[in-house]
């Protein structure tokens, strides 16, 4: 049986951290994480926040 074809392609719609992402307006570059920085492992001689 041939694979079912969907009628029309539409651009993906999604929200990132609660905000709608507009594909046409958005810059095509990697976006820095908006969430809290993951707790990094200690960095000697630079120590983490205690």
């Amino acid at each position, binding site marked *: 049986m041939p*694979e079912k*074809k*969907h*009628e*029309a*392609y*539409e*651009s*993906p*719609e*999604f*929200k*990132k*951290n*609660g905000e709608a*992402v507009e*594909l046409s307006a*958005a810059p*095509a*570059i*990697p*976006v*820095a*994480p*908006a*969430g*809290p*920085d*993951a*707790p*990094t*492992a*200690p*960095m*000697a*001689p*630079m*120590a*983490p*926040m*205690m």
Partner: protein
Amino acid sequence: MTKTKPTKKTIETANFQKKQFFDFFKNQAVHYALDNHSKPYINDLSPGCETCINGTWSCLFINTMCTRNCFYCPQDRTKKNESLPQTDKHIKFTSPKDYVNYLKKFHFKGIGISGGEPFLVFDRVIEYIKSIRDCLGSQHYIWIYTNGDLVTEDKLKRLKDAGLNEIRFDISAADYNLKPASLAAKYIHNIAVEIPVIPEDLDIVKSNLKKFEDIGVKYLNLHQLMMNSYNRAAFNKRNYTVTNTNLYRNDSPVIESELAALDILKHALKIKSGLGVNYCSRCYKARFQGKAYRKRYASVCRDESESVTRTGYLMRCSINGTPEELTHTRGVFNHRGKTKCRLTKNRDEAILVFPSQCLEKVIADDPYKKIDITYLSPEINPLVNNNKNEKYILEAGSEKYFFKKILTFQFELTNRSSAIFFQKLFIEQKSIELAAKEVSSEYDVKTDQMQKISDDMKYFYNQFIDIEYLSKDMPDYT
């Protein structure tokens, strides 16, 4: 008071300078750990650094007091009392045995003993190293950090006998005095100089590279200065420029420090230095030490309905609906006990968290169903949990440690193509090209639409790149 934001011109100039360094490195014997530009190095890396790259390094902060008060120190130097040994922010140890159990539980292979200044609690250091060797054998790689102030021949002998592999000297804390490192080279197998790169001291470091080799230093590890609440005033006085404050929440890396580190690397190449010179950027730490931390705890925090991403986040797929509808869906998914869904419901509404392998079925069932994708960062905390039946992850000293999942990213996929893009790129892990081709074949697309699908796919992928993958390039200063 914080420094005013750098001008656009300053940032552009710094980005140009950074690009020039990396252009220079292109035809040189520069290696990139994990094939990532955030950690360039020449010659060799210390075996200790290798364990960090592999995600199996444990840094034990054995004390907090120090003999110095460096302007760049990121720790609270007003503390007057010594603390218990601790690691990963919250975990404290009252005995070497507790620490060894922790090392075993999370499969560490490398142990770096930091402080404070560890030589201030020298007997404690020896006790911990001996316990590690007695319980775990000779395979683990152990090193210690020091500013060299309290190093003596007798202490070096004791460290050697206890089984220490390497000493790393922060000579920037001690006026670039090389005598302790020179002495240590007689007793300890590997000697490293490990310093934050102070832009004003660039020429001192460059002119000393040959001397480092002559006295038996094998590795030079360069760190990027980072500004935080403890050193902000001193950094502002020196007029440093900081960047990327969104990416690195708790501290701000100094641009001039990174450029100076890359300059040292370039100089080492030019003079054909035999040192293993390694630039460990803040960006590397955020990407790979962060990933190692998450992966360490993800396996013990994971719920059966969640999956662990390559970057160590816990990923959760969920849909909302009526209790009846989702109870039915759960029944279908859990058929023959193959999958584990989690249903949370009240009288009128419910949320079904389902394993990622069920996503395709959800899309097929209802192409317009809104799907939530949530990424959580796992961590463990010594908090007393309200739920007394909750299982603790670790017991150390008098504390019990429970897991905690921090909401980090959230996506709502609100139409069919976003769900399919997600399925193909991040569940099936297909390339952008293949995923775009497959999506095109699922629709009656005209030729001119295929380019649009490909462009949409690239943009969609970029939205997830720091979550599902770790970028290869260094980010530009902003």
